[in-house]
């Protein structure tokens, strides 16, 4: 297989080769496998990566339904991040406290040339005034776009002004697109502000004995709701979700939960770590994508709380849920077994979906992350070895102290050790590598050229990716499904989601149009045609 990697890299110029060679790995070739990640994309190389703003506003903050997010900048950035990610939510009331839902709205200061020349703070203040007067939100977030940082508008000062003037929560996010090397920088910036200004500011304690926060779950297509339903069936209260379907109202109480469950490690691990340091809350890496991984996640939660009654209830729920989907999963598996897949998504899904594919007997021949760090590939044990380059240094990394009021340890160190022996490792993510078959290809920041080449050589049956490369694969006659948006299907999480996913794959592979691509006259050898030179 390494010849596949070498063949691809050989086609690059010396400089590009030097850069890309460490981003492309053949699994099992080195012990341990090491990859380069979270470094700059070379200009001109067609990357699928987005920017810091997309990671901050688009990914982490966007789903928070009751915050009016004002994008401070020219119109585009607000426009493109308006309703285009399927983080579902609706307004609701909890214990007499309302959370409005502004996801149908797009707020922008629509900066014009004079604002760029003379500064946009005045316009931003006026925009806040107007948002307050029309919507009366409990929270306003301000997200900066590129020019704002360049002209030096102090959005944080404006946020402080907003809080004083209107008595609401008002937070600035300096997530200019040029920061960092991908969306990842934006995740970090959003995480920092959430811990600084929201988490820990509420005082509504959970009602149930066992409670969790669901971190890094963005409720795409309703995934998070399925997980919440499942946890509720097990008797576990979900205090807040970061951030799918969630609210400022809920997140401010998140420090009162017993345990943090981490779905997308990349986008939210900073919050998980900082809540561990500040509030003593352990985090557990879970994966509710896939039947086996959902079962494993539920059992780990049971073991964490160590309550026999809870464990029994979890087992009941598992056998019940499994019973409902078992036949359909077996049927789908009979149809899908032996197929191969390539995955190129964000910073977690390329790992999560491999376990779901395995449920159906589909193996992964190529996987890559768009904006992950080395720990997402190799496991958190490599974090001390990661060299911080200039681009990462510019992103503030904050340390937090133990909270005098709320710091609380749920399990003692001995109990944690005992758990680890049972296979439940807390505050740890093992990364993608360990689950990948020897010889499969792992490619960080997979670019357009590499996509085309790898798909041509590896010939997977399905390519899971995003909208920008979906149709490249499809035009090549290859089924391509978006794992960012689920091609507007889903939910894909938990047991029923796995079935939906399998059905969608089978649908994609079976649709009759694939058989119509070649016109009949192109399939019949044209024996009566004239040979060259005859006419």
């Amino acid at each position, binding site marked *: 297989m390494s010849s596949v990697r070498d063949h691809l890299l050989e086609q690059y110029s010396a400089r590009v080769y030097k850069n890309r060679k460490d981003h492309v790995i053949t699994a099992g070739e080195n012990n341990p496998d090491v990859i380069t990640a979270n470094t*700059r*994309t*070379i*200009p*001109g*190389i*067609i*990357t699928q*990566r987005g*920017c*810091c*703003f*997309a990671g901050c506003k688009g990914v982490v903050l966007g789903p928070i339904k009751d915050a009016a997010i004002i994008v401070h*900048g*020219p*119109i*585009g*950035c607000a*426009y*493109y*991040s*308006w*309703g*285009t990610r399927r983080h579902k939510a609706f307004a609701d009331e909890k214990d007499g406290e309302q959370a*409005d839902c502004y996801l*149908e*709205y*797009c*707020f*922008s200061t*629509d900066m*014009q040339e004079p604002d760029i020349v003379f500064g946009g703070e005045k*316009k*931003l203040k*006026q*925009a806040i005034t*107007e*948002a307050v007067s*029309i919507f009366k939100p409990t929270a306003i977030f301000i997200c900066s*776009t*590129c*020019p704002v940082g*360049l002209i030096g508008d102090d959005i944080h000062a404006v946020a402080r002004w907003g809080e004083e003037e209107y008595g609401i929560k008002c937070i600035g996010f300096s997530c200019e*697109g*040029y920061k*960092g090397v*991908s969306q990842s920088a934006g995740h970090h910036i959003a995480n920092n502000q959430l811990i600084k200004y929201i988490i820990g500011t509420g005082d509504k304690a959970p009602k149930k004995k066992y409670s969790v926060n669901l971190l890094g779950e963005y409720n795409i297509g309703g995934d998070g709701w399925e997980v919440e339903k499942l946890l509720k069936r097990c008797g576990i209260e979900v205090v807040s979700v970061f951030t799918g379907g969630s609210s400022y109202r809920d997140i401010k109480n998140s420090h009162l939960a017993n345990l943090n469950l981490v779905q997308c490690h990349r986008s939210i691990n900073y919050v998980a770590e900082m809540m561990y340091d500040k509030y003593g809350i352990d985090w557990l890496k879970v994966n509710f994508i896939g039947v086996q991984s959902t079962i494993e996640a539920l059992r780990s939660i049971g073991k964490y709380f160590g309550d026999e009654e809870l464990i029994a209830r979890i087992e009941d729920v598992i056998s019940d849920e499994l019973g409902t989907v078992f036949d359909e999963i077996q049927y789908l598996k009979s149809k899908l077994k032996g197929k191969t897949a390539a995955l190129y998504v964000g910073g977690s899904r390329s790992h999560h979906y491999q376990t779901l594919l395995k449920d159906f007997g589909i193996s992964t021949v190529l996987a890559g992350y768009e904006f992950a760090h080395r720990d997402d590939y190799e496991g958190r044990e490599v974090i001390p070895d990661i060299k911080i380059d*200039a*681009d990462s240094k*510019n992103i503030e990394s904050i340390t937090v102290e133990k909270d005098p009021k709320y710091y609380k340890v749920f399990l003692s160190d001995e109990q944690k050790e005992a758990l680890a022996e049972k296979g439940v490792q807390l505050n740890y993510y093992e990364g993608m590598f360990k689950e990948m078959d020897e010889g499969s290809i792992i490619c960080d920041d997979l670019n*357009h050229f590499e996509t085309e080449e790898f798909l041509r050589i590896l010939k997977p049956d399905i390519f899971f990716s*995003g*909208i*920008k*490369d979906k*149709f*490249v694969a*499809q*035009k090549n006659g290859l089924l391509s499904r978006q794992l960012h948006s689920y091609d507007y299907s889903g939910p894909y999480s938990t047991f029923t989601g796995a079935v939906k996913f399998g059905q969608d794959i089978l649908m994609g592979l079976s649709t009759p149009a694939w058989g119509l*691509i070649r016109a009949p006259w192109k399939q019949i050898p044209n024996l009566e045609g004239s040979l060259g030179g005859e006419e």
Partner: protein
Amino acid sequence: MLDYTTKEMAERSALTINPAKTCQPVGAMYAALGVHKCLPHSHGSQGCCAFHRMFLTRHFKDPAMASSSSFTEGASVFGGGSNLKTAAKNIFDLYKPDIIAVHTTCLSETIGDDLNAIITDIDIPESKYIVHCNTPSYKGSHITGFTNMVSGFINYLSKKSGVVSEKICVMPGFVNPGDIREYKKLLKAMKVDFTMLPDTSGVMDTPMTGKYEMYPQGGTRIPDIIALGDCKKTIALGLQTSEPSAEVLRKKCGVEYEAMPLPMGVELTDKFIMALQDLSKEEIPFEIEEERGQLVDMMLDIHPYTYGKTVAIYGDPDTVLGITAFVLELGMIPKFVITGTPGAVFEQKANDLFDKFAVTDCIAKAGTDLFYLHQLIKNEKVDLLIGGTHGKTIARAEDIPLVRMGFPIIDRYIHSYMPLVGYKGAMRMAEQIANALMDYQDSHCDEKDLEVVM
């Protein structure tokens, strides 16, 4: 749905809510895709390029390829010159386009990158080209960006050789490949030899062949762009979108132009056809007259369902004006007509249309947003909405049927293959409008009133 939008018109001077425009670069990227073997290049941070490619792909459901200068914080401080130089080398090495069309972003504009100087410094391979245009996102809209990119191609490439050709230059406006194919059909029928700039047909509506081509068959050929300087005339379709580029070609090469509205509906298509006849001096062929006659026949057939119905139209200025003209011909009342793109000419042209058809109490507004439109509708409900995807929340909130036309339509398929321009495009509009109104009647009338024949 949109529960916080109030009936009381909110005074706003700073906050845009639910925009009806986006930023310049996405328009520039779309225009550049309409040149054969061209790779659009976004000179800014990666996110811009990613957003624009995402948006175009969602509208066309076809790949929108483009590259980025991938600015980091360092580039934002020291300038993006070296990023563009590196990018150009890598692009020519790896993706082998014939031409790179660079557009700027609010980032590179704010730091003041001098693209002329940077490009002059780049070692461009033999017979390859790099062109650029400035697309500051804090001015105009995606329409402005489209115009600027078209002008950019002319600025860099078009030359006057001194020998005037028989060809005319056609600037299509910000329209779909389906529209461009319709223009071409009409131009061919009228025996007019032309160069279309840009031409996204065959690029953003490619057939399924089982083989992806990074540079499909379509797109304006570079030699044809160069030869635009010798054209005998330019037909600039879309006053706001195309006229500025036609003026650039006139100034540079002395090619006179005729700017006209997008040929939408009967009279505006008549105007286009007669302009072509003026050039070719040919008889208008029967197939065109037949199509026109069919269209008018349909309009008479459906008039009981369209006459007097009120409609709100939103989107891009030239497209909205074209739709407005046609709905007036259908006897409808274009109660609210808005665009997010700034420009006084829009309001003036819309008001001219209102006057021409003697409709009163209609509102036209440029540089506004969908929140404003929704507030207008809350004060006076309309029978129909026409525009892109983003109006669907209003449609749902107010239970108004929505006909999708224009850009962007990211929640439906196939539309970009179909025309809105020409008589054929008007037939399609007529069908969609009548169907929407009649479906609404079917789903909302009393059961006893459900008509089997309509």
